[in-house]
């Protein structure tokens, strides 16, 4: 475990130093996307991996985070950082409202219900004039500063902000893993009835896990809005995004702390690079490549790519 900590610190130092060596803004963008997806996928992993409640609706939290911040900023001139907090509160609210009925469903039925919830959100936001409907919302251009959460001359400040969020997500997930909550979630995944017989209120713990998941996804929504400065329903709460979060965790290692990080470093470059270099047809080709990858991993490494690194250690 000591060795693992050293590797982790080294990895984070490299990530922190990398912007000094980047010449091309696209490389910076790519790393930002990798870290954003890694953060969200860690969030997905808390509910989908540890607790075994596969959610295909997590993009809804991303959307709530992005929209809450945007609406507050545009209509009420509220600072985006406060907007981020408000987004987290609303996302947790949504998680509780969705979780209360849906957690009564078991296995695949929960997954199906979350797809429905995600799609309902898209339909609502596409038709809701107050939040810009299908056109979306443009963020006002403010003076660039950390407080305003806007930078126009360089992507590097965004890079460090998302790196901080990734660290936060790793810290949260580590705390979950090491605490009673983490053990209980694994017990719930393994055998819900057995867990109940040992006094575990499974509804409550699933709800806590879902809320943590919501917060980690929601802050990324805020980040995305401030980074791209334009949001619309299909860029912030698309079903495909939820599926990507699941696939990233799956490739990397479900229910493992660093699984989603490894997954994001493999999956996002694949997705972005094929999209850039293979032009408009790229969309199809990267799908084919990643499907192949998922199939191969499922056959040879069902525990995910993380298992390649962690052999021997715990």
């Amino acid at each position: 475990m000591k060795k693992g900590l050293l590797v982790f610190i080294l990895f984070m130092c490299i990530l922190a130093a990398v912007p000094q060596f980047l010449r091309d803004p696209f490389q910076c963008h790519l790393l930002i996307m990798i870290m954003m997806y890694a953060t969200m996928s860690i969030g997905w992993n808390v509910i989908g991996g540890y607790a075994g409640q596969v959610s295909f609706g997590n993009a809804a939290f991303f959307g709530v985070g992005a929209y809450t911040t945007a609406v507050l900023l545009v209509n009420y001139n509220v600072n985006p950082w406060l907007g981020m907090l408000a987004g987290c509160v609303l996302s947790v609210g949504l998680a509780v409202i969705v979780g209360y009925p849906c957690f009564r469903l078991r296995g695949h039925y929960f997954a199906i219900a979350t797809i429905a919830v995600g799609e309902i959100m898209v339909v609502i936001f596409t038709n809701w004039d107050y939040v810009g409907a299908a056109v979306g919302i443009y963020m006002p251009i403010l003076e660039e500063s950390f407080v305003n959460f806007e930078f126009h001359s360089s992507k590097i400040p965004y890079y460090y902000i998302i790196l901080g969020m990734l660290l936060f997500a790793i810290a949260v997930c580590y705390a979950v893993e090491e605490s009673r909550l983490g053990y209980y979630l694994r017990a719930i995944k393994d055998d819900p009835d057995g867990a109940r017989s040992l006094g575990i209120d499974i509804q409550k713990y699933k709800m806590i896990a879902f809320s943590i998941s919501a917060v980690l996804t929601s802050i990324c929504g805020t980040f995305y809005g401030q980074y791209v400065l334009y949001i619309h329903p299909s860029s912030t709460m698309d079903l495909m995004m939820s599926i990507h979060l699941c696939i990233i965790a799956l490739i990397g290692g479900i229910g493992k702390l660093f699984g989603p990080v490894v997954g994001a470093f493999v999956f996002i470059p694949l997705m972005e690079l094929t999209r850039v270099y293979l032009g408009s047809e790229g969309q199809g080709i990267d799908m084919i490549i990643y499907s192949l990858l998922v199939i191969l991993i499922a056959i040879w490494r069902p525990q995910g790519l993380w298992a390649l690194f962690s052999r021997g250690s715990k």
Partner: protein
Amino acid sequence: MSADILVVDNVTKRFGGLTANANISFSMKEGQIIGLIGPNGAGKSTLFNCISCFYNADGGRIVFQGQEITFKDPESICRMGIGRTFQIVRIFKDMNVLENIMIGAFLRNPRRKDAQARSEEVAGIFRFTDKLYLKATSLTISEQKRLEVARVFATEPKIMLLDEMMAGLNIHEIKESVELVLRLREMGITLVLVEHVMEGIMPIANRVVVLDYGEKIAEGTPDEVINNEKVIGAYFGQKYAKRRENKTRIQ
């Protein structure tokens, strides 16, 4: 005379048209071992599930330490101090032995360190000390059943409901189980055992409750129950019971 720790009062449970338990009543005192026996399909497991609130009874009352628990849920029952095991072993398959016990220990020890320390103690009692980091699924069936009991024990129950913990074990393992049950009683735990293995349950039970077709047909000390005509009828058929009765009369 201490008050009854558990009272089962006229409990009825139906599944559609099938009455799995009909007006079953019995009560038990602290520190007793109660055997719950009967042929397959007699309703023993159903009654177990009613007491542990995995099912809610359709009629009657279940009272634990003076508090009615008939309509509570399994997790609150466990918190109140009634622990149970399952007929088919339900250990956590992806965890090792220590982690399995910790899931139980977390109930009274929210902090990880405390839960781990407590679990290591429990593992000692159940002779798992040298197997702490083995995967639970790599244990033998008899060890897995013992692990399930250990896990429940870690929740610090006052009553333990053990569902067929001796089924499928060899004679040596049954002996171990019996010793384990007796040790649990010494530690002040009241026990209800559903059991088919008579040589396991009869020597240790204070009282035996016999079910057949969902009804209680007998209750008493093991000796009384063994000689009860209805019980013999239920196990060996009415014909055998009659023949046996005639024989004793002739003698």
